[in-house]
């Protein structure tokens, strides 16, 4: 058991250092701006339909569950407020990160793993390209930019999903619903909760890039890198989320 825990921290440390090097190298010349834009499209824009649809579904379902609970206390009027607080402060950031860990983490792990076992990473090096910077730094930066934006999309779609469910059941107006929803979440609460997702983006990119970049052993190694990227990212995201929530409570006490 002790060895297992030691190995976990050893691997987590390596991945963290790998990601930090990726982040640092992004600010060294030559800046890989075109590749970062390509990655933003691939990791961010192409994830938008999944995030938007998931957000809508989660919003509808959570609204229905919240209604059944609040009805007992005659507090249905609070549904928009409860939904907005739950989404923006915690559910939105974490669910978006877990969805991205599945889609983007698996993709990065498989892509870089495939490049490693087919010698494409060596080919980049032989063409005088810093493969680490070109492949890892660009993905780390793109994920850190995309994650807060996608979380905002998720939150907006979830609150909209809540409105759809609510308006069908109670006939609440658009203006009233959104006015109630946003009255409970001031901007100062939105910022730390959403910005923490940049850390989630960093973790997803760092972990999956580490596993893909260091993949070994042909197709099996690529599959392993892809699967481990999702599993490791998800576990570490949940652990880091707990730590970040404590930090946010400490740093922004008025929001807690």
């Amino acid at each position, binding site marked *: 058991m002790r060895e297992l825990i030691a190995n976990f921290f050893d691997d987590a440390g390596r991945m963290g250092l790998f990601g930090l090097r990726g982040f640092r190298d992004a600010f060294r010349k030559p800046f890989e701006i075109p590749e970062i834009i390509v990655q933003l499209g691939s990791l961010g824009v192409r994830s938008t339909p999944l995030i938007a649809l998931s957000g809508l579904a989660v919003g509808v379902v959570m609204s229905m569950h919240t209604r059944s609970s609040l009805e007992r206390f005659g507090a249905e009027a609070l549904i928009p407020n409860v939904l907005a607080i739950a989404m923006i402060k915690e559910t939105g950031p974490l669910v978006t990160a877990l969805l991205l860990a599945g889609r983007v983490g698996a993709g990065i792990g498989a892509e870089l793993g*495939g*490049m490693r076992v*087919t*010698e*494409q990473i*060596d*080919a*980049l*090096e*032989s*063409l*005088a*390209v*810093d493969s680490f910077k070109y492949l890892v730094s660009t993905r780390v930066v793109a994920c850190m930019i995309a994650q807060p934006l996608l979380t905002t999309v998720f939150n907006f779609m979830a609150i909209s999903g809540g409105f759809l469910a609510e308006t069908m059941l109670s006939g609440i107006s658009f203006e009233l619903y959104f006015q109630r929803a946003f009255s409970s979440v001031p901007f100062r609460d939105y910022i730390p909760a959403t910005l923490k997702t940049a850390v989630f983006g960093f973790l997803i990119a760092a972990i999956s890039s580490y596993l893909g970049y260091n993949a070994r052993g042909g197709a099996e190694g690529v599959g392993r890198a892809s699967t481990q990227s999702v599993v490791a990212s998800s576990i570490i995201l949940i652990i880091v989320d707990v730590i970040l929530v404590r930090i946010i409570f400490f740093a922004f006490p008025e929001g807690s």
Partner: protein
Amino acid sequence: MSEAAIRFEKVSKSFGSRTILKELSFEIGKGDSVAILGRSGTGKSVTLKLMIGLLEPDAGDVFVLDRNVADLDASGLSELRREMGFLFQSAALFDSISVGENIAFPMRRQSKVDESEIRDRVEELLRQVKLDGEYDKMPADLSGGMKKRAALARSLALRPSVLLVDEPSAGLDPITSEEIDELLISIGEEDETTIVIVTHNIPSARRICDEMILLDGGLIRARGDLAALEASDDEVVKKFLSSQSGG
């Protein structure tokens, strides 16, 4: 021998407890074409990767174009690599971009030439490797031989003075293999490029190269042209040559 393009001085390399190269020393002259032969696992590909700095020696020095590869910093290594081309055994084309983009990639990264010049150079290279009109094809749509030719075109994009080729005929039929050999011969003759080929295939090595180096047990077992190797009394050399068909 002419001035050295590549020089190994007592180079050793191990992976874990397995020693691959043991104080290996040799020189390859500028403009020469040399084949490195040997059984699987004798360190042929390792030797090639040491030349371009993809691996570092545990001991000894590797000099390429008068520069000690291990002493170079990142920018020095990049500069050296710009003067070298590497054709990988698996071709290693970037599978997310087209054949033409693969060939243009090193030019876009390393040279400040405008797009029309890059396009012209890519078309010229595609003609040279007989892939005219295949600019927009994706690597996945190419046969093994076409991939090798496209990768060869990419490795020539920056007009390297040293070309390293890892198993050019691996996985190819004899006719396609011969086509690749012809291309390599023409590159060596026209551009006076130093060519180092790692291969199991003696007919291919004989077609392309002036000289052969046979590696065995991490050391050079024999060196010379095919006639010299065939005249050798060494049992290992004889066994290696006799095991090759069509020689």
